């Protein structure tokens, strides 16, 4: 820790010339009319080719001077000691205000290597009476030696060797405006160790620590009252005032272990000098000089500061304003303009810039009623810079259309207050048309139903019956079931009966054919015995013919001598039997009308017929 300042000092010395900086500062921000102020323009990191001074309206220029140095030096300007770092140029104007009021001294311009750089503007309030108020940010890299005749200088050592100051970047801010407070430790001694005892509670402010504790504090050197100090910015805080009024920030308390040298003329830069003069440590200076010190634990407090917070002006406040302050920009987008119900559409509103980003809230966009949506996701991308917090804050709205159709999403206008202009700014945002097609997921709407309320009562009067009177499973019901089965059984029985009947008739006739034939033959026999020839032949031929109709269920009218043989052959009766059967038939017919001419005897014909019927019966039955 002992080498902390030494090392930091080294780095500082080497890197300062790398970047071009052109800044304006004044020693007082508020002065009485009869006093003088000094405005200093400092250019570092380059040599000016031209310098254009601003118009100092409202001021009388009492004197001006400029100098530039390529190496670290101290020069006397207007009788004042000015210290310069290597590569710095300064232009100093001594001004006397003409009358009371607030004045802004416009930026000066320099040209370095063909490029023009503008400084910042300086705002000065001139009061009719009262004392001067130190200017913020006055304790810059190099400080002008205070003028004994003027009011007390901003950075006052108070005669101490180690002290701390709190420097706000602005002493007067708007509500919601971001500014920083820098805590700087001034020391003429080595500080081996320090720790923050008590951080002030910053009531009324939103705060964010800007100092990264892992890296070394930013350091530089300053001369106050002719004494050289090492300065370390030990803490820097970004603040956003959340209410109007005069708010105070209490002091920060620090405990440091300070190495106080025994010699009175100890110079913290001796180590630095030693290092450059004799890097091998072979100089005449006692290398054990560090041992000639006393270690002391000291409590150091910074000065409390008060900030006057102005309320945001009511005049010109847009309706859509909801607290955004800063130099901001907004971008909006939707990720698709065509989707299906149940899909999600993302609406992004991205606010970027420098301002009270962490406190910005979303304003509800105009989303169609049939869309489901939830509070947006907030995605922050903040960067801590020495000027405070900047970056982006993105609001991501997830929209879920539930009904198909054409819809318009209208993000509400975004407005913010710009403290540097003191004006409200409003940005109109574009509308987005979204075409919703019917998706396959139908459960979206039913879920929506579920989320609302119970469904309404049913007001149609139902058929109110005593529960004991219900038809289902009543006696009547079972009777109906039984009747159905019974009816089916009856129908089935009826059909079966008819089929059976049909089958029976033909079978019966077949079955009875033989018996009928026998009976007829018997009758024929009696006719034969009685000698009634004609009746005998009639009965015999009847027996044969009717046998055929019964046996083969053929109508009698369809029978003839010619087809009888075919019918027999079709019914598997052998050919000779069929032949004989038709011969007998023929014989019967013939002898019926001419009995005397019979080729066979009456008896023989009878026996033959009986024999043939039995033969046909046995063959046809197969």
């Amino acid at each position, binding site marked *: 820790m002992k080498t902390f300042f030494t090392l930091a000092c080294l780095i500082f010395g080497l890197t300062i010339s790398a970047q071009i900086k052109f800044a304006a500062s004044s020693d007082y921000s508020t002065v009485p009319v009869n006093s003088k102020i000094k405005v200093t323009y400092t250019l570092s990191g380059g040599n000016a080719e031209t310098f254009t001074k601003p118009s100092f309206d409202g001021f009388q220029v009492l004197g001006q001077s400029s100098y530039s140095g390529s190496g670290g030096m101290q020069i006397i300007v207007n009788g004042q000691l000015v210290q310069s770092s290597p590569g710095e140029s300064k232009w100093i104007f001594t001004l006397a205000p003409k009358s009371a009021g607030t004045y802004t001294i416009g930026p000066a311009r320099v040209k370095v290597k063909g490029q023009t750089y503008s400084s910042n503007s300086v705002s000065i309030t001139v009061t009719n009476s009262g004392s001067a108020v130190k200017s913020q940010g006055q304790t810059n890299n190099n400080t002008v030696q205070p003028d004994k005749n003027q009011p007390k200088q901003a950075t006052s050592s108070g005669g101490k060797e180690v002290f701390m100051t709190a420097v706000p970047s602005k002493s007067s801010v708007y509500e919601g405006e971001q500014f920083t407070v820098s805590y700087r430790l001034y020391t003429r001694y080595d500080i081996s160790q320090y720790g923050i005892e008590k951080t002030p509670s910053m009531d009324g402010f939103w705060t964010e620590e800007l100092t990264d504790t892992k890296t070394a504090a930013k350091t530089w050197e300053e001369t106050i009252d002719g004494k050289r100090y090492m300065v370390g910015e030990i803490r820097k805080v970004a603040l956003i005032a959340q209410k109007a009024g005069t708010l105070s920030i209490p002091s920060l308390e620090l405990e440091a272990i300070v190495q106080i040298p025994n010699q009175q003329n100890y110079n913290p830069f001796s180590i630095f000098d030693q290092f450059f003069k004799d890097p091998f440590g072979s100089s005449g200076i006692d290398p054990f000089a560090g041992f000639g010190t006393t270690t002391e634990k000291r409590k150091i407090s910074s000065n409390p500061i008060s900030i006057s917070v102005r309320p945001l002006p009511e005049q010109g406040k847009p309706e859509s304003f909801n607290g955004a302050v800063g130099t901001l920009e907004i971008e909006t987008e939707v990720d698709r303009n065509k989707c299906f119900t149940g899909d999600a559409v993302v609406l992004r509103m991205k606010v970027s810039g420098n301002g009270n980003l962490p406190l910005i809230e979303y304003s509800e966009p105009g989303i169609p009623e049939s869309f489901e949506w939830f509070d947006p996701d907030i995605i922050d991308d903040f960067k801590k810079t020495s000027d405070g917090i900047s970056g982006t804050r993105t609001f991501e709205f997830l929209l879920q259309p539930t009904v198909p159709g054409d819809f318009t999403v209208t993000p509400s206008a975004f407005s913010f207050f710009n403290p540097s202009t003191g004006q409200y700014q409003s940005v109109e945002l574009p509308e987005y048309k979204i075409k919703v097609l019917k998706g396959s997921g139908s459960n979206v709407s039913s879920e929506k*139903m*579920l989320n609302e*309320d*119970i*469904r*309404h*009562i*049913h*007001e*149609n*009067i*139902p058929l*109110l*019956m*005593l*529960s*004991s009177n*219900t*038809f*289902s*499973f009543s006696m009547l*019901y079972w009777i*109906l*079931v039984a009747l*159905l*089965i019974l*009816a*089916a059984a009856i*129908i*089935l029985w009826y*059909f*079966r009966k008819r*089929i059976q009947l049909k089958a029976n008739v033909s079978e019966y006739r077949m079955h009875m054919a033989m018996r009928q034939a026998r009976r007829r033959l018997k009758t024929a026999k009696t006719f034969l015995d009685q000698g009634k020839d004609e009746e005998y032949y009639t009965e015999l031929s009847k027996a044969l013919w009717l046998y055929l109709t019964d046996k083969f269920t053929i109508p009698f009218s369809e029978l003839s001598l010619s087809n009888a043989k075919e019918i027999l052959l079709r019914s598997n009766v052998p050919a000779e039997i069929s032949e004989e059967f038709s011969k007998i038939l023929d014989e019967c017919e013939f002898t019926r009308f001419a009995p005397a001419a019979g080729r066979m005897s009456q008896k023989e014909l009878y026996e033959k017929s009986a024999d043939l019927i039995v033969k046909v019966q046995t063959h046809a039955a197969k």
Partner: protein
Amino acid sequence: MKTLSIILFSTLWFVSVAAIAQSQTPEEQFSNANALYNEKKYEEAVGQYNELLRSGYIKDEVYYNLGNALYRNNNAAAAIWCYEKCLLLNASHDDAAANLAFVNKTALGNQEVVPQNFFIMAWNWLSAQMSWQWWTYFFIIVLAVFLIVLILFLISASNKNRRIFFLTSVILFVVMILALAQSISGNYNIRHSKNAIVVNEAAQLRSSPDQDGTGVAMIQPGIKVHILEMKTPWLRVITPDGTQGWVPEESVVRLNAVSPLLME
């Protein structure tokens, strides 16, 4: 004598008023209750619906409306009972199912449910297609068609027709048996349902059927439990998340009861 006649007269008057009140038809009572509900007189509506049920008009719509009135009257657990009962009477009552899901979600949050096997799920799906009464009518229709096809099968002569009629009759027979089973089970459940709802207040589920049994879990009002065993005055129940334990009989109301509201 005068006082007697006054007493007689006033008794008569009261009797006649009571008779008029009694003579209100159930349809009138139902629409009265609906009117009370629409006037946001939920407690009175609950009373009317309940009376209708107590008089024996056990109807799904009465339970549905009673459930709504109970829910509006901040008795979500009893409302759940009514919706369950309504679905028991008519498994295809969509609005009761929707309201049951809604009230379950608002009163109990998302419950963990033990998944059921495929056959039980298929059976439940089938029973949700129509009320058990419709299943009985459906059975009769299917029975009639089945008998016709069966007769056709038995009397048809050609083999091709016989095959078609046989297959059809087999399918119809299966459908018929399912319909009969559905209607019998629906009817049985109404009278003997083993499901019950915790109605009044959260009940302590105990490991054994006595007051000293170790507490297994608390069951919230509105939770549906299935009764596994009865040992008066204790019931062994299983909750939808699969926890088993004993609860006192009076802490639940079975779904075969007439009303979730205990008799005063």
